[in-house]
């Protein structure tokens, strides 16, 4: 996980935590043994965390291959 944002500025503690959770949700969304109730809600949560980390310049990527 990166220690800097897209503009090479050091991450704050809360930004680092947001990025960690985003990555954890991506990992979860990649699992294929989740029941529908978990799989779909994880994707909703991931979409929200994508927006958080996108707004804070922590990542800029597409998530369609994860169905998000």
């Amino acid at each position, binding site marked *: 996980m990166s220690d800097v944002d*897209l*503009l090479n500025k050091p991450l704050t503690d809360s930004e680092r935590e947001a990025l960690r959770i985003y990555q954890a949700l991506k990992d979860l969304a990649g699992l294929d043994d989740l029941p529908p109730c978990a799989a779909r809600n994880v*994707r*909703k949560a*991931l*979409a*929200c965390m*994508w*927006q958080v980390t*996108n*707004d*804070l*310049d922590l990542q*800029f*990527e*597409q*998530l*369609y*291959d994860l*169905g*998000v």
Partner: protein
Amino acid sequence: MPYPEFWNPKNETLPKEELRLLQLYKLRRLCEWAYARSPFHRRRFDAAGFGPEQLKTLDDIRRIPFMTREQWMESQLEKPMFGDLVATDQTHAIRYHLTSGTTGRTPIRVLDSTKDWEWISEMWCYGFWGFGVRPEDVVYFAFGYGSFIGFWGAHYGCEKIGTLVIPGGAQTTEGRVRQIVEMGVTTVCSTPTYALRLWQQATEMGIDLARDSRVNKLIVSGEPAGSIPAVKRQLETAWGTKCGDTAGMTEIGTIMIFECSHQPGGTHIIEDHFIEEVVHPDSGEPVGYGKLGERAVTSFGRGFIPLIRYRSRDMVVKVPDKSCQCGRTGDIYEGGIRGRWDDMKLIRGTNVYTRAVEAIVREYDATDEFQIYLWRKDDIQDEITLKVEMKPGREAGWQELQKKLAADLAHAHEGLRFNIERVDHGSLPRFELKAKRLVDDRPVVGQHSR
């Protein structure tokens, strides 16, 4: 703790040079994505000899060919329903919308995923928060919630902010007025035209919205009129509150500009999520600050249908961020969207724009609704008639109004003579969404005249 002024303090106040670096980074990534996944973009990039690796500075954006609505429509026709612009599997979409089709052409069809909708609503959050909407607000959407994207994103944005959202939905204007008053609504969202209609209906019901409602913010979108000073003045007086303009387009799914609570006479560009170029409508060359040109937009939000250097046909004048005191570093479109290049009509050698006519008509408080009617006299001469409905009870002032309108319109249009005609109150169409106030009844060459 008081709320911060900005929805995204980190990016809304980013120094300009850092903002440009962020845009360059996102542009490269977006072009890589589009080239890899969208046949439409790959074809265009290859034909222009452009590759994403050529983007070394933001000026290199000019290496990318412009994208037009016509190309998009062609792609849809060749490969129904969505064309080959789409960059991912259609099963990833959760929503379908289409353009409102004011120009009568084939509508543009769009698909969006869960992530895209987070982003669509987010852009509205920038705008609504910027105009002062907070979790305590009660927000009313005077909107029909159909296939036209309209205020859908704003609805979700307000839920995200934490306001109480009231979806107006399909009901009568009278029913909407009652709801606004009864529910203690503080923020009303509609088109500028419909905000006037709501006020008019309230007046007929004996309700003074400025006195009898709790509305303290009016947020409009969907028509250029929201930034016409005379329209804004009328709305602010009628509702007894400030009125903020926003503007977006179905092609990007959301808004790209908004007026902040400082009301600088223009709309801030959300520059961490868009690149907004202003170019000459014919040559495509960039025009500088303060010059009228056409918007070309690159959107970093919707990856499903990448939009890169899309020619909007919107007329704008860009000015630096310093013309507003709010502290945002995004540039401003002075006067918002000033009209559309393809809205221009040529009458006896003079250019006529609906927005320019509306700006004059709305200076006169006695006017209620109007229509610009173009026709041909004796199969030879083009004529322009302004049909005017007067507000009930103001009819005695018609002759003076007629003279003033004729003089003002001629003055603003190189002496062009407008026929000014009074019509019965309620005889002209009313609009909830995009108003269509220009009727061109001139025969088209190659067709039988009526």
